[in-house]
């Protein structure tokens, strides 16, 4: 029998279902890996060992009793700490929600549980998903299993590290401006942001409501397809969720003949590191080798994406975070005893610097007299960005380019420079603003100071073409060896 960490979720679920491997053993293996690696990673904010063991035993009993195993039967999963599982602390990496246990379970979490997944813990993240490095977590940064001195990316940092280190084969993150695709790229994982509305947001703590999308990490593209088939599909509790059921994976061969791959020149900007450029160009050559036709396309408003994103997302965040007022749950500081004083003291004490910065920005851009110049204009640019993509997708089936302009950077390297940090989202944010599906898959490595660091290829498709994007990613993965490379710190 292969060791636990060598299997992906698809293989594990199949072995569990066939009785070839016990769920309880798998759970113990996951918990053991977690216990061994966590001191170096700081990937988890909550470990659910007892709960996971009890669930594993229950799943074993159910299978023995003849129940049909779910698609994720016995698969250990980790959830980002902004996801609601009734009674389990979901602190969003923030002091303001330290100890907060939601009274309800998110729709997508319930679907995971119903499919037989075993949740082993809640993962570290940049506070309220605001950040690209995990350095904005109130509970310390997560370390990249490829180099512990570096960031795993963010904001879904803990989920990425947990999968890249072999603790779990599958973890959920949330992607607002790249918070799953960027860490996937920096940790040599497959990470998929579905079309906006594909996965219900009910129970995902909101950051940018028009952008947020629950997004899985895995070590194989087929696991992303599996995860999507479980968590996607309409939910009547989320009015923005798409009406149709989960997409069906496309299985039509290992080649990409006839596929038109758009290559936006804007996705190869000056700031791209040499290693990233070389790996991306090699990846494009691989796609061509698989039969795809490479087509240069223009996305002329790309350079406006970052400022637009940081207006839209901060505006929504300033609104979404208004509920953290110390009245009903979470941290509270008395202040001067007045209601206003309590609000001010609570929010001043319990939000981190980046969250405060974004609340201030968002409040400003929505203020009377400034709305038109900032938020109103950002909405117009967002429409232009969408149109860029629509026009591109009249010519091509998918777009391809690098996911992140650099490989994993050192913890502390950009922490003092928010704008430099914002620019690490430059290649992921346009797709987010347009609500499109996009995947990051491993596409190479660079050597930085003697350390081998992974690079990710981003593939994006038109709205609702989730299955197409994943099929292209799977073909690329099959044709290359990158996804099979493991981090130095691996279970």
């Amino acid at each position, binding site marked *: 029998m292969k060791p636990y960490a060598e299997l992906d979720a698809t293989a594990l679920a199949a072995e569990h279902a066939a009785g070839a491997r016990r769920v309880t053993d798998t759970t113990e293996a996951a918990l053991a890996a977690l216990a061994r690696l966590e001191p170096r990673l700081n990937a988890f904010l909550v470990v659910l060992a007892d709960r996971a063991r009890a669930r594993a035993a229950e799943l074993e009993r159910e299978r023995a009793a003849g129940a049909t195993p779910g698609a994720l039967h016995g698969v250990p999963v980790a959830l980002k700490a902004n996801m609601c599982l009734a009674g389990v602390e979901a602190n969003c990496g923030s002091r303001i929600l330290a100890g907060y246990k939601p*009274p309800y379970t998110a729709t997508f979490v319930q679907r995971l549980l119903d499919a037989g997944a075993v949740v082993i813990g809640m993962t570290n993240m940049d506070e309220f998903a605001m950040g690209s490095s995990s350095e904005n977590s109130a509970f310390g940064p997560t370390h990249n299993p490829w180099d512990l001195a570096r960031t795993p990316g963010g904001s879904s940092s803990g989920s990425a590290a947990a999968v890249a280190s072999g603790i779990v084969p599958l973890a959920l993150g949330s992607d607002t401006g790249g918070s799953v695709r960027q860490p996937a790229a920096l940790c040599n994982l497959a990470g998929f942001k579905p079309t906006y509305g594909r996965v219900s947001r*009910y129970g995902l*703590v909101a950051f940018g409501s028009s952008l947020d999308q629950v997004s899985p990490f895995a070590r194989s593209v087929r696991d992303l397809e599996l995860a999507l088939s479980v968590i996607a599909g309409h939910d009547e*509790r989320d009015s923005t969720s798409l009406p149709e059921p989960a997409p069906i994976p496309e299985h039509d061969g290992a080649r990409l003949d006839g596929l038109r791959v758009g290559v936006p020149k804007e996705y190869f900007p000056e700031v791209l590191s040499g290693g990233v450029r070389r790996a991306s160009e090699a990846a494009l050559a691989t796609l061509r080798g698989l039969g795809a036709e490479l087509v240069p396309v223009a996305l002329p408003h790309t350079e406006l994406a970052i400022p637009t994103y940081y207006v839209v997302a901060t*505006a929504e965040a300033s*609104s979404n975070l*208004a509920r953290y007022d110390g009245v*009903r749950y979470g941290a509270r500081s008395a202040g001067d005893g007045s209601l*206003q004083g309590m609000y001010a003291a609570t929010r001043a004490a319990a939000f981190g610097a980046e969250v405060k910065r974004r609340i201030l920005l968002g409040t400003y851009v929505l*203020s009377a007299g400034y709305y038109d110049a900032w938020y109103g204009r950002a909405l117009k640019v967002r429409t232009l960005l969408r149109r860029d993509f629509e026009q591109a997708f009249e010519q091509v089936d998918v777009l391809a380019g690098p996911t992140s302009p650099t490989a994993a950077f050192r913890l502390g390297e950009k922490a003092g420079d928010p704008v430099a940090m914002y620019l690490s989202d430059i290649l992921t944010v346009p797709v987010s603003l347009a609500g499109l599906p996009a995947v990051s898959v491993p596409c190479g490595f660079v050597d930085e100071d003697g350390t081998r660091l992974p690079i990710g290829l981003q593939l994006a498709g038109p709205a609702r073409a989730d299955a197409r994007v994943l099929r292209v990613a799977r073909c690329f993965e099959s044709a290359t060896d990158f996804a099979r490379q493991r981090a130095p710190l691996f279970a």
Partner: protein
Amino acid sequence: MSPLTIAPSPAVVSPRTGVRWVPVIGLEVHCQLATRTKLFCACAVDFGAPPNTLTCPVCTAQPGALPVLNGEALELALRAALALGCAVQPTSKFDRKHYFYCDLPKGYQISQYDRPYCTGGGLLLSNGKFVRLTRIHMEEDAGKAIHDRGDATLVDLNRAGVPLIESVTEADMASAAEAVEYLTALKEILRYAGVSECDMEKGELRCDVNISVHPEGEPWRTKVELKNLNSFRFVEAAIGVEVARQIEGYESGDARLVPVQETRLYDPERNTTRTMRSKESAHDYRYFAEPDLPAVSVAPSVIERLRSCIPELPAARRARYVSALGLAAQDAAVLSAERAVAEFFEAAARLSEKPKEAANWITNDVLRNFGDAELGVRSVDEMALRPYDLAELIRLVDEGAVNVAGARKVLRVLMKSGGRARELVKTLGLAQVQDTAQLEAWCRAALVGKEKIVADVRAGKTQALNALLGPVMKASGGTADPKLVQEILLKLVQNG
């Protein structure tokens, strides 16, 4: 209907200066939709429930919870729009309105800002003035902050998320009387259309008043918003004192007393208004489109279906009762004010074919009995009386089978416990005695020792007999047919 006459709005003449001041009044009315559940979650709406028992992750703003629009609320809101003659917009959207207060769980209220679900419409006042509605929009209610339980403020979120419509008028009214008439008519219509119970004591109808005054013929001046007006009586009183305050302020010559743009609270105990917040401290609500809710689209077929369900409204009924049924205007107004009463009346009028008598019975007896605590029947919904039974009772009185006094007793029983009128007349022993021999016996007994009356009657003063009617009725236990008694008495006196 009588032709409309546009009455000039009355100016207020300053006793000090003789200047004619014209009040300019607009109303913003919040009305709670009579849904079973809240606007964006499935929590029940119930005024009397223990605090915080009607809550869920959505209406307590738990992280990650999302709103879902209640279709019933939308339908009721649309009915209000159609009943008030508004133009329903093909698409509208929800917006977030931000402010911090402990009874507002999300830190924003979901409301409609620049694209409300309907615009236009309005109401006609009895003086011929049409009060225009600017718009109506849907929004959720806040919770309730309770400050009078010791040091701590307590918060009850049962009301948080309860569906409201806010209707905003143009500043078309010029007096407290017009404002109150508008509110009364609005309330009647909303109740008729089944939109809301409009029970002000439960906060189901809340009214803010925008008010300014200017000398006749001059441009409008600064408007002041009045809040905390939880009865029509307070609306009337508050407008009165605020108009007087503003006039005095302008005429005082003291710059500090000149009205400024602000929100003022009405204090019913002192019958004054006082500053709540100034324009400078007004909120910046930072409205933006609610990203959790898609735009609301209403298909024309839905509007047509709902339009066909709107009942005939009070003003139209009132006019019809006068013109087609020949009722007095006052009775028509009383009978049409509530839909249940109006529908009961119309059925009884149709079944009895005697609309005036049906009207009399309802206005004089049925409605009055609602106030009788002993009877314990307070509304049409609560009573057992059916229109058929009232029609039957009217017929029995006409036939002479029961007299009016007896019929009133039967009516009370019918209201309380129902039954068949004809049988009740018998079982209650109220059937009128028309047996001549029996009646003669009672009449002869009554005549004993009444020589003076007999003499008067014989001298031509027949009305003197009326004094004998009472004793006969008494002797009969109220069952004697008074007409027959009179005839017999006269015959006995003249022949005896």
